């Protein structure tokens, strides 16, 4: 444990909640495919990836609750905050759309997280480094799985190519937000806890570039990137997601299995 970490508990908590919310919300989105995937293998694959993400969220919420020091546990952080208190990136909350859209979103998020987890493995914060060492192995599988689908659909039939290209267009406004830098990200970077996301873009491009090349896809630049998730400003879709996610805890406060 990095006892002498110069970062404030408030900053550390804010950072951990961002990571945790990204994983919980995207994990929930993926889990919505359970029973609806285009084939049985994917019906197994997507909930499996969702499990990884929700498991990672759980470790992060536990730590965030302790770092915050207000007695909130993982369930309270995951289930009973208000919409504006969630600080996930906007990409994570986007509706699933079709299978191509879901797979591209997964690929982007994994390509963002892999270099981040790899860097956090040598964090000054031993607890976070431990979480990262596990998550890094899991995200490697997500990149492989989603990346293969990006190639298969992008370089597939006329219809699959059309859909993958539409997904590239649709998700383009949500990429830049991942790499935003602000006082929270800079504070944890200065403490050696995690790199500033703005430094991770080359690693992301190095993962996405070859897959796009093989898939025959062109990168789409968009002049109007969406932002606000890290400040709790969300799209319409998140409220509906939270209504379902929080239902049990709102109906039976404090319930446990």
């Amino acid at each position, binding site marked *: 444990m990095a006892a002498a970490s110069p970062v404030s508990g408030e900053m550390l908590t804010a950072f951990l909640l961002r990571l945790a919310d990204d994983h919980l919300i995207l994990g929930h989105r993926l889990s919505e495919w359970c029973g609806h995937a285009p084939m049985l293998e994917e019906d*197994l*694959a997507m909930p499996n990836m969702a*499990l990884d993400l929700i*498991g990672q969220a759980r470790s992060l919420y536990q730590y965030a609750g302790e770092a915050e020091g207000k007695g909130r546990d993982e369930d309270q952080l995951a289930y009973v905050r208000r919409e504006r208190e969630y600080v996930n990136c906007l990409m994570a909350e986007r509706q699933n759309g079709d299978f191509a859209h879901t797979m591209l979103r997964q690929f982007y998020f994994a390509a963002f997280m892999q270099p981040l987890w790899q860097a956090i493995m040598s964090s000054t914060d031993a607890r976070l480094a431990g979480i990262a060492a*596990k998550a890094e192995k899991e995200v490697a599988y997500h990149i492989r799985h989603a990346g293969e689908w990006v190639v298969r659909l992008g370089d597939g039939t006329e219809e699959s190519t059309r859909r993958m290209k539409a997904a590239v267009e649709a998700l383009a406004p949500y990429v830049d937000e991942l790499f935003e830098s602000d006082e929270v990200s800079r504070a944890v970077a200065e403490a050696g806890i995690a790199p500033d996301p703005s430094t991770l873009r080359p690693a992301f491009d190095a993962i996405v570039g070859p897959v796009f090349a093989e898939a025959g896809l062109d990168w789409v630049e968009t002049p109007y990137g969406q932002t606000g998730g890290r400040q709790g400003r969300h799209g319409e879709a998140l409220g509906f997601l939270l209504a379902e996610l929080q239902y049990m805890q709102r109906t039976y406060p404090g319930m446990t299995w």
Partner: protein
Amino acid sequence: MIGETVVTAFPSGRLFPAGGEKEERAYSAAAAVVDPEIPAVTIAELGILRGVEMDGDVAVARVTPTYTGCPAVLAIELAVETALREAGFEPRVERVISPAWTTDWITEEGREKLRAYGIAPPVKASNSIRALFGETEVACPRCGSLETARISEFGSTACKALYRCQSCHEPFDYFKCI
């Protein structure tokens, strides 16, 4: 207390008790617990049980999940708690996630039991398959053929992938290498 996440391994880093009679007995009890998803192997053979130490009169067992979100972890922790209690100990089960579990911790005996159960054990050297699209040669657990094809990266549980044997045509689970 179940499910408390502790991030350190044993301070000494060792996986087996020092040899005290009590610790040996507690370890044997915990080590006999089988995996709820793969009852052919014990949690010790899978490398999930990281050790048992006595803390005064309390037997402290430490277990690690294969995957962060593995839903079997809770069942395993409860089974370890029950096993220790039945062996006459006051149990405490702690969850450790660091160092991260790797398939290299599955014992030789565990690998053989997995194969006999119809699950291809992980191919060794867990870091060699990292490359994108890297394919691994997986032997069919039934006929031993290397003519196998991956059906899905994800199988019936988070720790397994789905394969098919081209020689005997049987589908089978492959314990993913991490």
